[in-house]
């Protein structure tokens, strides 16, 4: 009556290469989305703060829209709609596998909204006098932003940007909805195939925990060093 | 009333209090002074157990503060304390600030607590402010409320931890006046303060501390007329220039 579950971890060793491939996919998505998210997020933040009304409205609309909808939904729609669009607009052959591409695009566009809010706060944390001082030295807006304001802003933001990167890495597991074999998808597939879902899901949870915990401890350490420096 | 016997305290290797010994008798007013970092605030917080100490003994009305078996909450409920930054509870109206501990700690009824609260607000001249919130009062008014709040518990003695040092100069006197009146009524008081005028007028004894030690413990007259230690003389000389 009170039998407990008997664990069998034997399917893990053989599956390691496949799981590793999945991890590579997860890291790939994270990396591209972080880089693109920061670049596009910076552009959005500058637009949002600019005095050109249509630009700031566009940025505000973009950021608020993406921040109001669930990531799963965005990923699903990119998975369902982008291939359609590309096929009909650009004449891609039907059935091209664009899952990875559309997943990355979905992540990048979505996360850019979150990055832009972090970056906007960072830019606003730089005292206004800095921009004035740069202008007084004869720099134009672009030079002042690029040489004076942004470097200081990014220095303040690094820990937040890194933390957002960790969140993004966790979020990559959501590409499960597009049947893409990222680390989580790979673990799920192996568990499903071998009838060992319990072990594989626990294993996946443990791996995510170790990676994210270590990374967040590192960020905290880094933050302390930055504060004392 | 308060007996401090050989009390020492350290954070790691840093000695905050070193072998402090003194007594406060019933009805006595003691002023504790000294340069910043001399341990005077720490000493007064040891008296009601807000700061733990490693060595020595403190008793208040015969109850040992350091004894782990002592019910500290009960002891604190009749030792009034007034803080440098007033520490009124910002989310409660003034009258609620005076009532809350009467209700929840002493178990008084609402009517009794309210009556007591209003009586004490009258006494510090702030009855009209009863329904306001701490953030709407000036610093001096807040500190007077804080004194009334402590008195509402019918304390057997009062501890003052630099009660005027966070105040704008023009508000210092309204607080000192309340304290002076309290002293005249015979309240036992231990005051950490730099207000030497107050000490001259009201104190029975003055304690001077430096680097965690009680350097002088003298009657008021003896302290002001011929402080023995060089540090105390320097301190008195500096205070004059403020």
């Amino acid at each position, binding site marked *: 009556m009170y039998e407990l*579950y008997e664990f069998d971890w034997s399917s893990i060793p053989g599956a390691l290469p496949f799981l590793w491939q999945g991890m590579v996919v997860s890291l790939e998505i994270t990396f591209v989305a972080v880089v693109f998210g920061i670049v596009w997020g910076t552009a959005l933040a500058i637009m949002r703060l600019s005095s050109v009304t249509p630009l700031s409205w566009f940025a505000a609309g973009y950021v608020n829209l993406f921040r109001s909808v669930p990531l799963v*939904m965005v990923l*699903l729609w990119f998975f369902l*709609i982008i291939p*359609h669009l590309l096929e009909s607009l650009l004449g891609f052959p039907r059935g091209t596998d664009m899952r990875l591409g559309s997943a990355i695009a979905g992540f990048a566009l979505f996360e850019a909204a979150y990055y832009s809010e972090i970056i906007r706060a960072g830019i606003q944390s730089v005292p206004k006098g800095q921009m004035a001082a740069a202008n007084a030295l004869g720099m134009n807006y672009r030079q002042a932003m690029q040489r004076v304001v942004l470097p200081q802003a990014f220095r303040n933001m690094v820990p937040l940007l890194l933390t957002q990167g960790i969140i993004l890495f*966790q979020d990559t597991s959501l590409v499960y*909805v597009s049947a893409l074999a990222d680390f989580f998808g790979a673990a799920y597939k192996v568990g499903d195939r071998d009838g060992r879902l319990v072990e594989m*899901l626990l294993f996946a949870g443990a791996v995510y925990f170790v990676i*994210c915990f270590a990374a967040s401890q590192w960020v905290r350490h880094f933050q302390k060093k930055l504060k004392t420096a | 009333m308060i007996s401090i016997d050989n009390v020492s305290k350290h954070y790691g290797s840093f000695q905050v209090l070193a072998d402090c010994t003194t007594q406060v008798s019933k009805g006595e007013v003691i002023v504790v002074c000294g340069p910043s970092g001399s341990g005077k605030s720490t000493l007064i917080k040891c008296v009601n157990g807000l700061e733990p100490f490693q060595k020595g003994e403190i008793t208040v009305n015969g109850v040992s503060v350091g004894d782990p078996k002592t019910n500290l*909450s009960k002891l604190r409920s009749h030792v009034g304390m007034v803080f440098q930054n007033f520490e009124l509870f910002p989310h409660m109206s003034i009258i609620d600030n005076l009532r809350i501990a009467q209700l929840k700690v002493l178990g008084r009824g609402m009517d009794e607590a309210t009556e007591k609260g209003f009586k004490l607000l009258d006494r510090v001249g702030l009855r009209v402010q009863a329904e306001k919130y701490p953030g709407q009062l000036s610093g001096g008014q807040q500190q007077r409320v804080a004194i009334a709040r402590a008195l509402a518990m019918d304390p057997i003695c009062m501890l003052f931890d630099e009660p005027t040092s966070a105040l704008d100069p023009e508000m210092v006197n309204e607080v000192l006046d309340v304290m002076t009146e309290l002293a005249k009524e015979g309240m036992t008081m231990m005051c950490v303060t730099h207000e030497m005028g107050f000490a001259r007028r009201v104190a029975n004894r003055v304690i001077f501390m430096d680097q965690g030690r009680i350097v002088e413990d003298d009657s008021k007259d003896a302290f002001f007329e011929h402080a023995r230690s060089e540090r105390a003389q320097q301190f008195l000389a500096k205070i004059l220039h403020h």
Partner: protein
Amino acid sequence: MGYNWNWGVFLQPSATGGDTYLGWMFYGFKMTIALSLSAWMLALATGAVVGVLRTVPNKGLSGIARAYVELFRNIPLLVQLFLWYFVLPELLPTSLGNAYKQSNPLAQQFLASMVCLGLFTSARVAEQVRSGINSLPPGQKNAGLAMGFTLPQTYRFVMLPMAVRLIVPPLTSEFLNIFKNSAVCSTIGLLELAAQGRQLVDYTAQPYESFIAVTLAYLIINVVVMFSMRWVEERVRVPGYLGGK
């Protein structure tokens, strides 16, 4: 590119009969609201307890609370959901596990989703509670203790009422997040808003209408949450008290 817009699709009877597609959307909307609100209650209650424990002087208790927060923060929500839904029933004693598996599937999905979302969010709520308590002036705790309050009374009457007021704005964003995160529960078959949106695509071949409708529904939720939290903020504002410092 020849897409045929057809907003009338929402009023058509659904493929399974008995309801319109609009009715489907509305069902999903209600499910999202019910799930998110119940998970939010769980998150607030658990998060408040854990957040308070993180600040107590007892090293053992604060350590346990910290471990709780780290555990729930460092595992992806989707993985947590699968652990609650697929793994936990297997690990229960057989009889209990079987009884659970034989219960109503919707109840299983809802319960797993609610517990998962609630505890996931509770770790974030706990962090806000902790930072709220830590941002109070340190003298407040001493003032409470000096009046004869016990430590629990000091939390109850002095520190928590102020800390809760300070964290209303950051809690707003956690409250918004729980609605968005609830979409993850579509992966275990719970027919909430995002899942119904997807179903609509499969059944009607009108993906854009369905996409826009679901997005609008989430926007409405956002606006309502923001206004209601602003109302709460106004209600709990302390007269004469500016900022947290």
